[in-house]
């Protein structure tokens, strides 16, 4: 691409760029920065935060504009290189990264620290979009799903190794959303993700039982459920129960003359048993703080000062904001330090306290506009690759929004997921703007490649 061409591209673009979309992004950055800067004002490193935020913002806007400048299909051409890069940066993080709060998730480069996991996620989305695009003709095959998962797995495992459970979790909706949008077999997709979901919910059920009925008798239901976690006769009995259940459903459906392949019924006990067994494994490997987060979510009143502290304080902050809020820089929950992580993960709670309902609905509205424009970009994309990238990014962003805001409102467990564009975090802002630049690019080139 020559310099002259690039200039022409820019001038031709302005008419096709989605200004609503850009307005939503700008609005989120402005409102988010206000809330974030107010929340950070009581921290020790305020001036440093201020500086880093505006450097990242400038870089991000530059990156957004640059990404818009050239044809996004370059990413599809270079998808193997991008995938290699994803693996490389997460691997490098594990080797070179610095440990902070028990996680090796930061890389320090030229005086800047960088969290590569989010960038790796976008790179995986780009690589997966290319794979699913090329698999278009055999999209219904089980091998498509399995290969797609195999592509994502190494990066996810490396991120999980940091260990950064929350970021790993944000890979899931991206992958699921893309596969679903690509048109894979729904049954297979649900079976596989259902299996994963069960494997996650089994430890969740254990935790619930442990909290709610800590002194459950052995013969009571929670006692029996907890007994299955010990890999003994109870586990075997549970598996036997699943087999009986599969058999029963099969007999019932054949009696009712439902036309389903018997293999599907065999899948039920296999899936359930496998989910139970992997759930037990997850349960045994769950870290203390991760279990505490579950506890805080399930039973916030059980230990106000401990794990549930964040959830309670965040809810108090949001609720006490009321309609009009307490005013920027005057929220008692955030300015007096009751609200934890107030400029990062819980920035939305600070916004809720200081700007009230109008502020939170403004952010939520801007987000919904943004998501709607991304979905529109997907629909209007000139190729399947663009469609898939947009669908994946929309799912990721929506999931992050749900997880972060849901956490601030006590609807979701505490997960260290930032609110993109709003939470403080230079690398997150940079990567998000770059990713959003790709979406803008796809939209702008919906009719012509320019």
């Amino acid at each position, binding site marked *: 691409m020559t310099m002259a061409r690039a200039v022409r591209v820019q001038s031709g673009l302005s008419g096709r760029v989605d200004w609503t979309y850009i307005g939503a992004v700008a609005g989120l950055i402005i409102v988010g920065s206000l809330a974030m800067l107010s929340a950070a004002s009581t921290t020790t490193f305020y001036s440093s935060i201020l500086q880093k935020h505006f450097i990242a913002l400038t870089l991000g806007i530059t990156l957004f504009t640059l990404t818009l400048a050239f044809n996004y*299909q370059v990413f*599809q*051409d270079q998808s193997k290189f991008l995938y290699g890069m994803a693996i490389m940066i997460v691997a490098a993080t594990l080797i070179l990264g610095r440990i902070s709060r028990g996680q090796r998730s930061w890389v320090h480069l030229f005086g800047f620290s960088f969290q590569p996991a989010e960038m790796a996620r976008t790179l995986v989305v780009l690589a997966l979009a290319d794979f699913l*695009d*090329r*698999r*278009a*003709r055999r*999209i219904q095959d089980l091998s498509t799903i399995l290969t797609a998962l195999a592509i994502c797995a190494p990066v996810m495992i490396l991120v999980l190794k940091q260990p950064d459970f929350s970021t790993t979790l944000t890979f899931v909706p991206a992958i699921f959303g893309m596969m*679903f*949008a*690509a*048109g894979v077999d729904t049954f297979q997709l649900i079976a596989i993700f259902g299996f994963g979901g069960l494997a996650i919910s089994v430890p969740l059920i254990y935790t619930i039982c442990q909290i709610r009925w800590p002194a459950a008798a052995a013969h009571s239901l929670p006692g029996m459920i907890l007994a299955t976690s010990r890999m003994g006769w109870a586990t075997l009995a549970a598996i036997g129960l699943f087999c009986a259940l599969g058999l029963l459903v099969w007999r019932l459906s054949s009696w009712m003359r439902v036309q389903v392949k018997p293999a599907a019924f065999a899948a039920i006990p296999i899936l359930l048993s496998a989910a139970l067994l992997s759930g037990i494994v997850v349960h045994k490997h769950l870290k203390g703080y991760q279990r505490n987060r579950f506890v805080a979510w399930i039973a916030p009143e059980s230990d106000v*000062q*401990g794990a549930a*502290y964040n959830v309670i*304080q965040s*809810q*108090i*902050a*949001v*609720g*006490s*904001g*009321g*309609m009009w809020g307490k005013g920027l820089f005057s929220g*008692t*929950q955030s300015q*007096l*330090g*009751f609200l*934890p992580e107030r400029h990062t993960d819980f920035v939305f709670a600070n916004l*809720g*306290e200081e700007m*009230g*309902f109008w502020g*939170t*609905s403004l952010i*939520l509205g801007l*987000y*919904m506009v943004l*998501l*709607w424009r991304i*979905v529109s970009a*997907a*629909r209007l994309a000139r*190729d*399947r*690759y663009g*469609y898939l990238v947009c*669908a994946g990014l*929309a*799912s990721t962003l*929506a999931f992050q*929004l*749900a997880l972060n*805001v*849901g956490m601030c*409102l006590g*609807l979701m467990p505490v997960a260290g997921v930032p609110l993109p564009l709003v939470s403080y975090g230079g690398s997150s802002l940079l990567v998000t703007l770059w990713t959003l630049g790709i979406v803008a690019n796809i939209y702008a080139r919906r009719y012509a490649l320019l």
Partner: protein
Amino acid sequence: MSRGGAVPVERLELLWYVIAAMGLVLGLRLAQMQLVQAAEWRLAAERNRSQMIHQNAPRGRIYDRNGVAVATNAPAFSLIFLPGKDRRRQDLNPLAQELGRQLGRDPDELLEKLEQAVREESAIRLAENLPTQTMFRLSELKTIYPGVDLIVEARRWYPFGRFASHLLGYMGKMSSREWRERKPKGYRVDSRTGRLGLEKMFEDELRGRDGGLRMEVDAQGRLKRVIDKIPFEAGSNVHLTIDAAVQKAADDGLRATATGRGAAVAIDPRNGDLLAMSSQPDFDPNAFLSTDPAEVKSTVLELSEFNNAISGAYPPGSTFKPIAGLAALSEGRVKPDDSVNCPGYFELGGRTFLCWDHKGHHRVSWLMGLALSCDVYFYQLGLKTGGGAIERFARDFGLGQATGIALKGEKGGHLFGPETRKKTNKGWYDGDTLNLAIGQGELTVTPLQMAIAVAAIANRGTVWRPRYIQKIVYADGRPDVVKPVERRGVVSAKDAAWDEVQRGLEVVITSGTGGGARIPGLLVAGKTGTAQNPHGEDHAWFVVYAARPGEPASIAISVLVENGGHGGTTAAPVARKMILAHFGMEDPAATRPVIPKMPAALTAPGAVPVPGRLR
């Protein structure tokens, strides 16, 4: 760039619906929390950020009769700890160690207190009454350990220290049971209450109502600013009839005696006002408020709550002789000029009763009999008068019954005589009369009773119910309560008898055993006593009243020094100091330390100069 067929847009549509539904859920939840439940959450936020710091109301002051504050308040620094809400990174152990070092206290005990504060989520006082130096050192800790703060409070302060301790009482902490009982009245667990004397009796009046500061605190418990203030209500002031100068003279005088144990009571014979009441050993009420726990502990251990002035019953010894004499003279059984030979002993029914001076007093009549306290003279006087009359007079003087002073623990002493014996169906013998006449035997009195009795001699018959409260000035504008003066009884005796007794008491001072209390320029009349005590050394007594010449007596005093020996040498100087203080006089003895010996001529009967009569 492969393009494999049409994309399944309907799936994208579904994805969008899911996203929209999620947005809707979040929006509804936001509306629920911020619009519907906002008030509740705001309350929670308010509870988070505000912390009540109680402010002790300044306790009502206690004044003496001249408006001198004898119990007041002084600003003092207290170290408080506010547990922060966010304790996740707060470690109490280093704080406990540091404070233990600074305050010289046990870190484990401090840690326990800190943890208790954290559990109850309420502010706690770690130390009170901090000296300025410690305060400055501790103020540095504020910046290091969040939640530690210093506040200034009004603290009880007794300017005179060891001063009327038993009357004023002291302030102490409550036991947990007491606190539960008093909680409804607004007491806090670290409130102090009056533990003895006036502080205890007038607790409700003196206390006032505590106020508080609602402070904004941050998550670590650091104080940020005052949100609002609940003003405290100061306690009501109590005005006493006590004269601080006399009281101080009594306390210091008694403490300076050989044994340092005893009691002294001073009363205004004109109206029954208590001018001083001292009991030794006493205590320093300020010590209970000390920052040094060891000091508080030792004070509590050594604390003598026993008020000798009202609870100690002692044989009156010779100080009873004026009463016996009044009975004899008033009944006409003895004439003042009747003389008696004292060989140093007296025989009755085969038993020998000794005079205190074994050498004997030779011929003595009323004046010298009293002045020299001749026992033989009073044995015979008693026999002539009879036990019944003496007992009646003694009862009229209020002996054998509690005076009814509004203080706890008062004893009535014990009066014995034919009447009392009759009630218990026991016989009365002449030997008993002899013992009664010289104030020995079963007779016991309290120093307060003796002060009232001597006041009644001074005012010729009025027995007062002593009062020590002048008035209570309520802080809330209620009208002052003035305690009325009460007359408890009257001793009726002939004027001539009063004259003789008063004259006799004057001679005791001018030329008798009470020379130690002589004060030039004042009319002083009194009687010494050396009460035999079966448990050890004799108790020294001195009762006295004094007046400016030509005026009615304005002070009557009884002094008792436990195991003090002779009343004239041990107890009289104490009374003398009290009289000087009462009349606002310099101690002439201080400039003229040698008191001239009694001239020998005065010992002869009839040679006694007659001092100016009282009234």
